[in-house]
């Protein structure tokens, strides 16, 4: 998802048509947002089936609330707020939700360095803080290298291993393509904290892709 902004007028037009009872317009909104709703719901419920149900309930919520929606916020923002309410309600019923607060609360990993300090020349030495073990040159076509099933699985695993707050931020920003301000609003984060979480999350995923994008060291005997 590159351009999120140009989609806005289109949403509004679709919404107008939905209000007039246009089924195709509702289908277009579903096609546009349902996969994203399911993915975002998994941030809260961590179980694909439940996420799918929460996403479906969200659409029912859209129909029920359509009369009251005054378009002071974007459709997407409204949709997300319905989703979080549905997810919370579901979590209260089943008591297995990821607490919403966990998505904005500082976690242990927030203060971790982007790169293992051992890879830099230690303090006190000449060139302290410069690479001791620098990244190797990139392979010929690193984008293609990252498309392999193995690399994709490694990226998935790296994201899944992140603390909930970092995972929420990297998924909303980099998977769903949201603007920073929208993520701050949705998760109740300050701009600075949002950037810190994004930085930790991206840094950890970067670490995971190193073996796929860097040339292998020349094999030497000792």
């Amino acid at each position, binding site marked *: 998802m590159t351009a999120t902004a140009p989609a806005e007028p289109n949403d509004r037009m679709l919404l107008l048509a939905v209000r007039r*009872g246009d089924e195709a317009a509702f289908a277009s909104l579903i096609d546009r947002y349902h996969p994203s709703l399911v993915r975002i719901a998994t941030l809260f419920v961590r179980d694909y089936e439940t996420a799918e149900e929460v996403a479906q309930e969200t*659409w029912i919520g859209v129909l029920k609330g359509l009369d009251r929606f005054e378009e002071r916020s974007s459709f997407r923002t409204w949709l997300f707020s319905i989703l979080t309410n549905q997810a919370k309600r579901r979590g209260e019923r089943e008591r297995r939700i990821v607490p919403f607060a966990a998505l904005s609360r500082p976690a242990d990993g927030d203060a971790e*360095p*982007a790169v293992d300090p051992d890879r830099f020349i230690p303090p006190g030495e000449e060139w302290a803080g*410069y690479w001791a073990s620098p990244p190797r040159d990139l392979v010929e076509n690193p984008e293609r290298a990252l498309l392999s099933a193995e690399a994709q699985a490694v990226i998935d695993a790296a994201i899944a291993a992140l603390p909930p707050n970092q995972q929420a931020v990297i998924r909303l920003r*980099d998977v769903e393509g949201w603007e*920073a301000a929208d993520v701050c609003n949705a998760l109740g984060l300050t701009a600075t904290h949002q950037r810190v979480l994004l930085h930790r999350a991206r840094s950890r995923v970067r670490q995971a892709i190193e073996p796929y994008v*860097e040339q292998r060291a020349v094999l030497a005997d000792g």
Partner: protein
Amino acid sequence: MGDTDVMNCQEFVELVTDYLEGALSPADQARFEAHLDYCDPCIVYIEEMRLTIGAVGRLSERDLAPAARDQLLAAFRDWKRTA
């Protein structure tokens, strides 16, 4: 950040996201870009961050067809009848 004008690699890697987000002060941005001018490993590093962002972004392409489409459209028809 650093107490000298010169940015080292360890500081650089911590400021990459702020740089990409356009959140650095003008002074830090100048120090950051000066570092990039001479440090080849950090050029690789920032490129790896860009590759990371691109690869994570492609996860949205792995889409499942909405399983519930027909069900939701039926709900829409109900809503239309009662609205």
